[in-house]
């Protein structure tokens, strides 16, 4: 019994190995990583085309447009969060593994963020420049996007876990997650707007950071419970 227990790798090791595995898988299929980025850029491009190229208008709508585009891009990639694992059966292995499931769900969220959220944050200044966003505001945009996309990856892991294995899961996932993601969108977009107007941004950033902490603490447990239910 004792020797068996000794063989179970530590928590940190479990977390690290699931993240590394997912990153390797993502590396072999770069489409998964690039599609949300292209989507983000394209949605952002749609708005000037639809609304018109006037500089003042773009400056006003820029923060909101970028945030909506980021939210949709994050949603787009969420569907596949557990889907591949579900289809090839490795989700059963993950659930049966001796590691606590919430930890592994956290690992999935972390790798999802590294693959889809982080590139989006990195690309966002480029897109923001086309909206004539001043440099200081771009900094605020990136900070809000960091906290926001982490929160979305975690929140989305709950929705992805609930809808994995369902037909029409993708549309359902958006329906479940979008209302819950509203606070992130509100604070994210508003804080960037405030920054653009040279107003105080600390409150919004603190809120996003707090939301992010809350999501890190609770979302993995909810996602783990949901995974167990959908995979039984």
């Amino acid at each position, binding site marked *: 019994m004792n020797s068996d227990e000794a063989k179970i790798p530590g928590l940190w090791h479990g977390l690290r190995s699931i993240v590394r595995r997912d990153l390797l898988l993502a590396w072999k299929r770069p489409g998964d990583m690039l599609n949300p980025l292209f989507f983000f850029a394209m949605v952002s491009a749609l708005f000037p085309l639809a609304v018109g190229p006037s500089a003042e208008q773009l400056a006003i709508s820029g923060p909101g447009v970028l945030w909506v585009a980021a939210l949709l891009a994050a949603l787009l990639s969420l569907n596949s969060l557990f889907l591949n694992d579900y289809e090839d059966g490795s989700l059963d292995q993950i659930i049966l593994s001796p590691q606590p499931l919430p930890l592994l769900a956290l690992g999935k969220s972390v790798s999802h963020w590294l693959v889809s959220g982080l590139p989006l944050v990195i690309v966002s200044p480029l897109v923001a420049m086309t909206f004539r966003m001043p440099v200081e505001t771009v900094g605020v945009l990136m900070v809000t996007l960091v906290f926001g996309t982490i929160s979305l990856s975690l929140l989305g892991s709950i929705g992805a876990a*609930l809808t994995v294995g369902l037909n029409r899961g993708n549309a359902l996932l958006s329906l479940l997650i979008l209302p819950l993601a509203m606070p992130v969108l*509100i604070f994210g977009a508003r804080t960037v707007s405030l920054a653009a107007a040279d107003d105080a941004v600390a409150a919004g950033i603190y809120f996003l950071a707090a939301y992010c902490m809350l999501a890190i603490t609770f979302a993995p447990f909810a996602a783990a419970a949901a995974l167990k239910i959908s995979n039984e």
Partner: protein
Amino acid sequence: MWKFLHKLASPPHFYDLSAKIIPWFSVGALAFIAYGTIAGLFFAPADYQQGDAFRIIYVHVPAAYLSMLAYTAMAVSAGIGLIWRMKLAHAVAAAAAPLGAWFTFLALATGSIWGRPMWGTWWEWGDPRLTSELIMLFLYFGYMALRGAIDDTAKADRASAVLALVGAVNIPIIHFSVEWWSSLHQGPTLVREGGPAIVPAMMYPLLAMIIGFSLLFAALLLARVRSEVLYRERRTHWVRKLLMPSEEST
């Protein structure tokens, strides 16, 4: 006490008992709502700022209150069902969602009708309460969509329970964020519903309406839970006996 609760939770007993309670709740609801409507429409004095348009709050406020009550009922019973694996609790959660959606819709519609003469527009994004109600409606839709997408009842119960609880954690955050967002908005000056100096003649009809609507909600909820119970217990002996009494003799 535990024995009583256990007995209450047994489906056949609940099915019988609820049939006896529903008429009482309905009569009570009717009485309170009738008094509230008549007093609210004809006897309460017109508001000095809003005139007679303020009478809409006698249906708007109870509807908004029920939309919250229904979500609370849904989340609490979903939690009970998830933790103690109580089937009746899941049935309550399933029954509360469509009712909650109806009353949320009513709150939105009456709020919008009230807004038209007050703000000069059917929809005012700057009003945090309307916006919160709208998000609430989306939450109900999501819950019902998830439930509808899963065929297996037991699985649907547990999956939607997780969603209801996640939503319950998020609702205060959503309200807070919408409040914060609208506080930055230089919108039209909103007339506070009720206001500080509310006179008893205005207050009593509102209280009666809230009590009446709560009773109505209880009656509707019980009626819906009864059909849920019947469906979930469709393969049991007591349902067979209930629906096919002729078989009893054979």
